[in-house]
């Protein structure tokens, strides 16, 4: 694995190159029969999902269908009750303590509520985990952070604290913060749902760019246009299971399942 972000030839590695050289199958994430309950609420009722390296999978579905919980299970913020989750061919379901490292170094997540650290400016937000978790030096971390913030269009706001940034800007910083850890898989949990309409595009543009560069992404979203244009695969979830799965042209364009049709009918009316 390319640990220091440099390949042998010395050129800046592309994201595709950075991802999972150790998994020959090309499957970054695989879920089999994943269950999760909160009390009596059976939120995930046996989810199967496969995400190939370098692809974008959009997860759509009504509120309460288990989409967010699914993402939170993948990086073990919410440990699943049953089933197996494999990341790059390694089962992580029972991982605890130090083993969480394996998961969290490979999986980045961006949240609906940004969750930037309010007591730090944009640059410090992106640097913190680099120095504390990856053990990079201050200057290394800063260099990396600056280049990532430039990439998400935040070069002018390095020293700005989150409360002085718009939601869209905060979300772009949050994306840079996750990317700084050089994840092999990025999870996006309704990242535009808390944004004012005019700010959604700037975040989606960053995500499109990322997808174009070959990042493996699982995107929980209500943005049907994004799913149609960017996703390689779309999974429609309802009642804690994946009801329909396939290419966007199939799932969104020509759904087979009644529930998918109903949901799309409701969403696309607007």
């Amino acid at each position, binding site marked *: 694995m390319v640990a220091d972000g440099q390949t042998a030839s010395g050129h800046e590695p592309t994201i595709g190159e950075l991802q999972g050289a150790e998994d020959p199958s090309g499957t970054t994430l695989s879920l089999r029969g994943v269950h999760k309950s909160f009390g009596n609420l059976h939120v995930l009722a046996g989810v199967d999902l496969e995400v190939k390296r370098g692809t974008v999978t959009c997860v759509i579905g009504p509120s309460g269908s288990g989409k967010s919980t699914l993402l939170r299970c993948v990086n073990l913020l919410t440990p699943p009750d049953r089933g197996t989750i494999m990341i790059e061919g390694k089962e992580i379901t029972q991982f605890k303590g130090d083993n969480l490292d394996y998961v969290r170094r490979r999986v980045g997540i961006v949240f609906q509520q940004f969750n930037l650290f309010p007591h730090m400016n944009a640059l410090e937000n992106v640097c913190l*985990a680099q120095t504390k978790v990856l053990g990079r030096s201050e200057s290394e971390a800063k260099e990396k952070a600056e280049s990532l913030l430039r990439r998400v269009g935040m070069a002018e706001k390095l020293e700005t604290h989150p409360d002085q940034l718009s939601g869209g800007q905060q979300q772009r910083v949050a994306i840079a913060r996750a990317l700084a850890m050089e994840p092999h898989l990025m999870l996006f949990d309704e990242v535009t749902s808390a944004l004012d309409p005019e700010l959604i595009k700037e975040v989606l543009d960053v995500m499109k760019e990322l997808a174009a560069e070959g990042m493996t992404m699982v995107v929980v979203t209500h943005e049907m246009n994004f799913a149609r244009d960017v996703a390689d695969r779309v999974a429609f979830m309802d009642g804690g299971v994946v009801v329909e799965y396939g290419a966007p042209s199939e799932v969104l364009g020509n759904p087979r399942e009644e529930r998918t049709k109903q949901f799309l009918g409701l969403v696309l009316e607007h």
Partner: protein
Amino acid sequence: MEEILKEYFDLDVMRDTFPEVLAGFWFTIKLSVLAGILSLLWGLVLAVLRQTPGKLGAIIRWPTIAYIDIMRGLPQLIVILLVFGFFGELAESGLLPTEIAIPRWFGQPDPFWYGVVAITLTYGAYMAEVYRAGIEAVPKGQTEAARSLGMSYGQAMRFVVVPQAVRKVVPPLLNDFIALMKDTSLVSVIGLLEVVQVGRDVQQTDLNSSALMLGAIMFLVVTIPLARLLDYLIARQQRNEMRGGTGGDGPRPEQVSTGLAGV
């Protein structure tokens, strides 16, 4: 009327006893500042221990909770007397060397140090609860963000949660400090010649309360500005929150995480 004035505001008595009363008040200040700082630190330690996660964490969590409950439930006066008796016992039995059992460090008398210990034990528990409220007021998403970036629980607390909590708790901690300062007068029962004790001595020998009143005035000279500062800090914090100064990443009321939000 004149008698009352003479009893409480006899300027001659005040003038004559001023140096003594001031010396006593100086003890009060030293005791307050030292015990205040130690309580701040001890309280933070307790608050973090109280938050220890996991099943094994209960081994640390439960004794900490018990300690905090007990200390918050006991009058400060009893704690002072117990600490005093305990150290006296240790000195007598020879379990502790005399320099520690009867401390005279930095030229301060031993009741001063017993007072520091007793007040820190009590106010550490109060302040732990204040910190706890502060820690719990930091949105859960902050810990999750830190953990998802690979930080350990300890790192998330140290670099993300506690720095934010400390900001939130400055006003309530200052409030506790004012109370602590007033409670230092209780150390007079074990013979510390602090301001109240000086006043009482004069009251008993001269049958006049003016020295005590002078001590009261000295207290107010310090505590009232602190109270004003406290109000200012609270007002400023509220203004900040009104304009969304919490960082804008706190959950909106309708989105407060119940652990089920967004499932």
